[in-house]
Each structure stands twice: as C-alpha cells, then as structure tokens.
C-alpha cells in the first residue's frame, strides 16, 4: 500500500531570484518502510520532511496521503491529518521544561479529546515502550540527552501515528545513545510503523534498508549496495523493502 505519494512536488521560496529548496520530486513510500534521507546541509532534506509531514506547503505538484490529495484540505484539515497520521521526532527534543516526561508525552492527545485517564495510560505505555517507564515524573532538565530523545519518540508514538518522521534524531546524542536510537527506530519499524529518518550520518543511513540521497534539492535513490545510480530521467523513485 502506498502510504505517501509525491508527484512532481516542488518547494520554491520567494525571492530574487526564487530559491528552489525542493526540485520537482516524485516519490512513493509504502506502508511499513524504513527510509533514510541523507545529504549535506542545505540539500533540502528537512524541506522534504516538512512537506511529507504537512508542516510546509508545496508550491507545485500533488501530494497524496493514502491516496487522498492533500491540496483539498483546509488548514484545519491539514492539522487533523498531521496530528493523527504523523509523529515527529525533532533533533532538539522540544520537551516543555515545566512538564514531566509523562505530561509532555500526553500533549498530542489533548487535541483529540482523549480523557485524562486514558491520556495518562497511553503516555505511560509509550514511555515504557521506549524504555523510560522509570522516569515518568522526571522533568526534562533531569533527563540525559538519550532519555530526552526517547521521551521525544514516546511523544511521537503516543497518538499511534502511521508514519514517524525523524529529523536528525541522533544529532545531539553520543555514539552509544545514537546506536540505541537507531535500534529503537528499527524495532518500531519491525512493529509495522513507517519510519522516515533524515540524517547526515552515513553509518546510520547504511543500516537502513532504503536510502534517498538529496543534493541541491534533488532526490536520488541509492541502491542497497550503497551505489548511487544518479537521478532517473523520469525523476520517479519507488520504494518498498529491498
């Protein structure tokens, strides 16, 4: 099943001259895929992720989520789809400093009218799933970098999204914590979650079954052997487990 489908989607920022952040890209991501997006700074990785997560509007092309054209959605509709379909893991954890780990993880459920009791239960389950069951009432300031990032993932998982979008999830972690993080993401993917990971670290990308390389706003599919075949003439990259 095609989960996310970009059809000649492009993002151009206004300016003189206009800045193409994402050149016309066609890309399909199937349900249950684990996709890595690699590239240097400014190559358009984050823009691609923002478009996928409905955080940013494309300026051209068609973007479909499970076959539904997102262009027909109002802002409230995009918010609804974003809130349920996607979980976001940011490089900076963006945990609220004055809320405990459990309260932070509960936040996404506030906007789905979930009763407090069920929110608490879901938050506890999500934190246990990422191995933070013992730090439920800890404030972010008392958590280690790795623990914060796990809480970040728990917050993304609590609403049971279909797709997890991770923007440099290991960017602020040491190598041991980064290793744990990759293992965690692989485990979540094995549980059926679609995961898209933006990273600039080659060793992480090398462990992901499907890799997309970005360069100057162009998406190029990498073969499993690490060889970059170059951009296809039709600009279409299709995914699926290799």
């Amino acid at each position, binding site marked *: 099943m095609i989960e996310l489908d970009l059809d000649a989607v492009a993002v151009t920022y206004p300016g003189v001259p206009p800045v193409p952040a994402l050149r016309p890209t066609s890309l399909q991501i199937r349900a249950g895929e684990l996709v890595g997006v690699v590239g240097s700074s400014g190559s358009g990785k984050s823009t691609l992720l923002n478009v996928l997560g409905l955080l940013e509007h494309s300026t051209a092309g068609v973007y479909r989520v499970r076959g539904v054209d997102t262009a027909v959605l109002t802002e409230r509709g995009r918010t609804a789809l974003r809130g349920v379909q996607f979980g976001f893991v940011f490089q900076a954890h963006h945990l609220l400093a004055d809320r405990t780990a459990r309260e932070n993880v509960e936040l996404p459920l506030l*906007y789905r009218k979930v009763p407090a009791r069920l929110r608490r239960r879901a938050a506890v389950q999500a934190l246990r799933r990422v191995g933070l069951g013992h730090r439920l009432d800890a404030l972010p300031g008392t958590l280690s970098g790795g623990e914060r990032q796990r809480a970040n993932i728990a917050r993304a998982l609590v609403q049971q999204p279909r797709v997890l979008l991770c923007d440099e999830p290991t960017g602020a972690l040491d190598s041991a914590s980064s290793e744990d993080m990759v293992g965690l993401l692989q485990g979540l993917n094995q549980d059926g979650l679609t995961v898209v990971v933006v990273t600039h670290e080659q060793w992480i990308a090398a462990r992901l079954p499907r890799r997309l390389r970005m360069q100057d706003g162009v998406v190029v599919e990498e073969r499993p052997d690490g060889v970059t075949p170059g951009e296809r003439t039709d600009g279409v990259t299709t995914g699926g487990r290799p």
Partner: protein
Amino acid sequence: MSRSVVGTRSRTRRATREALAELAIPLPRMRVVDVLREASLSAVRAPARTLLNALGTILGVAAIVSIMGLSGTARGAVSDSFDVLRVTQVTFVDSEQDRTVGRDGRAAGSSLTLRAQESVAGLNGVVDAGLFWQFADGRPQPVRRFRTQGPADLSTPSLPLNVASARALTTNRAVVVQGRLFDAGMEDRHARVGVLGVVAARSLGVTRVDRGPVVYVRDTPITVVGVVGDVQISGTMLNALTLPTTTAEDLGLDGEREIIVRTAPGAAQTIAGQGPFAISPLAPGRVTALAPPDSSLLRNQVQSSLTSLLLALALIALAIGVVAITNVTLLAVMQRRSEIGLRRAMGAAPRHIALLVLTEAAATGTIGGFAGASLGTLTVAVVAAAKGWPPVLDPMVLVAAPLLGTLAGVLAGAYPARKATRITPIEALQR
C-alpha cells in the same frame, strides 16, 4: 463577503470533511477542562512568568481598589466636615429692615431683636442663636485709647464696630485669649463693655485686660473685658471692637442685623423653614433664611464630583494595566514560539492556541485581580489609619476586583492570542 467566496469555502470544507472521512481521521478538538488545565499548569509551573504577567493587573486593580476605597473614606471625612461646619448653620436677615434709627437708638423697623433671638433659640433642633450686626457695614470708626487724643486726632486708630448679643459670642464659638466675654447680665444692664479682637487689641496697644482698660467710642468709655483670639463664623470680630446689642443701641450704632443660628446636624433645613415664623409671626415673609443647600444634596454633589474624578483616574490606571499586560503577554508569546509551534505540529488548531493564550491571560488576570484587591485594601487601611479616618470600602468593589482582573486579562490577551495563531508549526523545527 461575496457569495462566490462563501460558496468556495463551503465546498473546501466539504471536500476536507470527505477527505478526512475517507482516512477515518476526526477534526482536532479540545475539551474545555483540558484548556483550563493547560492554562493553569502553564501559570503555576512558571511562577516568575506568571508574576511578571500578573504585575500589570496587580498594580491596575490595586490602584482601582485603593482609589475607590480612599475616595469612599475621604468622602466620609468630607461629609463629616460639611455636617459640622456648614450644614449646621443658618442665618436670618430682615429683608425689610428700616435702618432709620429712632430717638432711642433702635432701628425702627427691624424684626431681628433679642426677643426674636430667644424665640429662635427655643426652636427644637437649635443649638444656639445670636443677634449680630456690623455698624456702618463694617467701615472703620474712630476708637480712641484715651479721652483726649494728642494735639490732633491724626493718630486716632479706626476700627470696625461689631455688635453681638452675648449668645452670638457663644454661637460664634469665640475663643477668649485674655479676660472674658460679656454675658447676658451685662447686656441686660446696658453695661458699657466690649471685647476686642486680637488684631484690634494690638493696634490699640491693649496688652492686658485685667486692669479694665478703657477705649472711647463717640466719647463714651467702653471697658474692654476680654480679647478674642478666634471665632468660627464672623471672622471680622478679630479686627473689631464688639459691643453688646443694648450698648450699641444706646449709642445709636445700628446696622444690617442678622440672627446667626447653629443647629443640630440635619436640622438646618427645618430651622430655616420655621425660623421666620418664630422671628416675625405676623409677617414671616420679610425674614429670609440663608441656609446652606440641603446636606444630602451638597454631599451628593461633592461625592459625585469626587467620584467622577477618581473614577477617571482609576480607569486610566486600568488602561495602563491592560497595556502593560498586553506587552508582557505578547513578550511571553514570542518567547514561547517554539512551544506554540510544537503544539501546532502535534495537532493543535490555531483556535486551540488562541484559547490557551486567552485562558492563561484570563487566569493570570484573575490571580492579579485577587492580589491587587488585597494590596488595594491594605493601602486603604494604611492610609485611613495614618489620617485617622474610618476606612470605607464597598464590599462590591472587592467582589468586582478579581472579575475586573479577569476582564483585563482577556482584553490584554486578545492581541497576543491573535498573534499566537499565526505561529506556524515549522517554527518549532527551525529553532
């Protein structure tokens, strides 16, 4: 808004609903209890920010409560002053007084006499009443210190000549600094006595009265029995020689008479109505009462002016408070862009963000309202204690103050809330 735009929006909403239904995704919604909980958590967990936010409200509401309380307290004090000094005084004059002096020295046609004075004094509600007038409308008259005055009368001092009954001196609350006042007995005996005002005594060179100094009015010796240092009504007495009414009549010193009456608080209007009948039963119309305006009317006028002025000040204070809270709330929203963007990324609709900011501002305003009401009450109590006034504070002000704080919070939060809705989720990722 044109019909086509409305139609397009309606179609867009329908398309959104259909698309979300296809994906089995509900529109984002938030429970009211969760809005309140989030707002209160944000307020409680960041006490420094809350205090800073509430400071404008605290000062604004405290200013209002203080102003309302102090105006009430001051009004009470002002009213007391009016009751004591102004609304207890009535003056009667004879509008048809014939100032032609008869052979016996009496003004032939005045209805204001010692007998009339006693009639008025007998009215229920009268504390004291006295007959009083100024000879020659208060123009200074020669008053010699000795029977013969030097080679010429160039150095003869001139003084206004006041005439008062013994009761008029007490009605005037004359304060004796030397000697004594003349009394009703002296008045009855047509005694040639008088009292000098403290200024007049100085100009005549009278420094002691224990030896009965004599001054001469129209060559008639007048024994000075006392010196008056202060009076409450007829201030001219301080610079004058005041003679008993009988003595003045003997000397042909008449003038425009008046009976000064001091009444019990609240009785002035009644006495003003009854007095003319007591003074001149056959022709009450010729007697005019000069009473102050009705005390309640006067009080209301003063209170109204005072309240208007102070209310204007209070509103200015509130406006300053609202502007201050708006600024601080706006600053807080800008500082929390990342948090707001994050909430948007996690599914919060712009209206949820606006609701959160508004509710938090209202909660902060309410807290500020309570604190401001307490501070204002304390201010009123301290100032009243320092002035020796009984503190007066309408309980409704204390009830309304926190509500005012809430209202100020909502007003002040409106603009920042609008700004907050424009923060995009992408901002959370970029920081």
